[in-house]
């Protein structure tokens, strides 16, 4: 609490606007963490449980706790270079499936940015050098990362999706083979749409996918989702 207040007064002194990106209330975060604690341990002596331990999570590469068996999706994010920072953790815990497709983290996410900030403020205490972790990222984060309900409700034109999918099929196989490149067949429509929007908005890091998604409209993403959801059935 003291840290939070200190940061707040400094930003006032500097004439900065208070932003949602400021780290939150660690005591409230500790209470909120009780939900996470069903799967994740943190603090002295924490070990892996259903999920990996979260000591030193800030600055840690995704999927890098030794001996913990990650989902293919999360391991891939780590290999692609994702490092857990205030920003990436914030995106992940808002809607885990949008950031890491087919993650095993069965958690629907925290919609409220303040809740996320508070949980992250709590976790920050268990990082190796909390002092080195900024109170806030240098750039302002969006208030929240989300795809509007009306966008999720678009019914995709499957025939258009079939045409658009031909671009995907250069790498993603229709057979569902997934060596080196993930299988995207028979994927729930909402997960597909969330993932593609996350690439298009640049919150999910992968240069090829960002390049492909960058010129797809909402209708086109819905069309692709409609096509792949039933491919191979």
């Amino acid at each position, binding site marked *: 609490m003291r840290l939070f207040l200190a940061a707040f007064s400094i930003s006032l002194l500097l004439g900065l606007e208070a932003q949602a990106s400021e780290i939150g209330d660690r005591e409230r975060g500790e209470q909120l963490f009780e939900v996470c604690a069903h799967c994740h341990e943190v603090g002295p002596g924490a070990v892996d449980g259903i999920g990996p331990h979260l000591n030193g999570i800030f600055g840690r*590469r995704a999927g890098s706790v030794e001996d913990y068996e990650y989902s293919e999706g999360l391991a*891939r994010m*780590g*290999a*692609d*270079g994702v490092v857990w920072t205030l920003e990436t953790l914030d995106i992940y815990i808002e809607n885990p499936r949008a950031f890491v497709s087919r993650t095993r983290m069965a958690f629907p996410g925290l919609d409220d940015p303040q809740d996320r900030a508070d949980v992250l403020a709590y976790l920050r205490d268990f990082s190796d050098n909390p002092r080195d972790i900024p109170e806030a990222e240098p750039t302002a984060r969006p208030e929240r990362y989300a795809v509007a309900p009306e966008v999720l409700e678009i019914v995709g034109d499957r*025939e*258009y999706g*079939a*045409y*658009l999918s*031909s*671009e995907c*099929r*250069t*790498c*993603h*196989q*229709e*057979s569902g*083979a*997934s*060596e*080196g*490149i993930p299988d995207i067949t028979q994927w729930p429509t909402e997960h597909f749409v969330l993932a593609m929007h996350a690439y298009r908005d640049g919150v999910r890091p992968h*240069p*090829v996918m*960002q*390049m*492909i998604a*960058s*010129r797809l409209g909402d209708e086109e993403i819905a069309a692709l989702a409609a096509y792949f959801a039933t491919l191979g059935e």
Partner: protein
Amino acid sequence: MLMNRRVFLGATALVLAAPAAIGQAKPRLVVIGGGAGGGTVARYVARDGQGAVDVTLVEPNAIYHTCFFSNLYLGGVRSYDSLAHNYDRLVGDHGVRHVVDRAVGVDRDARVVTTAGGERIEYDHLVVSPGIDFVEGSVPGWTLDDAEMMPHAYKGGEQVRRLKSLVEAMPEGGVFGMVAPPNPYRCPPGPYERISMIATLLKAKNPTAKILIVDPKEKYSKQALFEEGWQRHYPGMITRIGPDFGGGSIEVRPAAGEFVVDGVVEKVDAACVIPAQRAGDIAAQAGLTNDAGWVPIDPANMRSLADTAITVLGDASQQGDMPKSGFSANSQAKVAANAILGELTGSRVFPAKYSNTCWSLIAPEDGVKVGASYEPTPEKIASVHSFISETGEDAMLRKATFEESLGWYAGITADIFS
């Protein structure tokens, strides 16, 4: 009842007669070249058309070896056999007729393709996807007859095997030489990935050997990434002579095993000569090429500007900002298949979207990539969004990029041949 039966029989006879009549009226697509462009367009038109279009593929090889990934064979990362693909599924599953022969003539007025074996194949629409041929005389001292001694190895297949055997036969501490091509050419990072893979081979078997690249270009694709990687993996092994030091003035002496670079004789124990390039011969024979040797196309659908009954795909086309690559040809083929089906069957035609990614291997498990998306403008196929790997990336990311390239190879070859 009898009447009814006769009526029924009559109706049956009509139904039986119908397919033959429809068969004759079926629109005919002929595709010259069974690589990333031609194989893909044949597969998509046959499959998505569900038999509405009669598709004939004219490709002289019964077994096709991809040119992409042939460098990985040189480096010992892939087997030669893993580059081989056949047309069994195009023929068996999708009803494509494969004419195992070389197309030698196109009569655009009569709409007939002739083959070396003398077959005449009529078309309603023709796809020309022949890849590249070389500009005669572009490397003084070298002709196609010298390709045994100094292979180009730039069309995949046996030439690549020949090149590997020459490198393996180099004396200890010998010199491997490459003449790199001027722009534009197939697979912009290809010569430099080849250098990397030959360096991998030499590092393991002949570590005191040297590599000399003679290059007429000021700069080349992924240059910073290759130079950083060569420094790290093969320090002191590779020298590149660019145009500022005479790389633009080259003569080769295949029998003597010599490069003459700006008047200075360099002894080479094995060499690869990649000449200047142009569209495959059949494109010029069909009268489709411009003065530069490439085929101008409509950016919206890859149609030849000289003849709307002909689509030209891949390396042979003058494709604006897109690089000449298997990925590009495959991407263009899908846009073209949609447009051709629309024209021949009236199916829905969607806007063109093109993309490309080129993965290159600098050392085993050290992969990098460059890519872009493209859209048609009235003038050309124009780049929309691009990316490139960065120098200084860690080993884990490079390994992931390499593994991704293996996934891409499996994906694109399935997309062409399955």
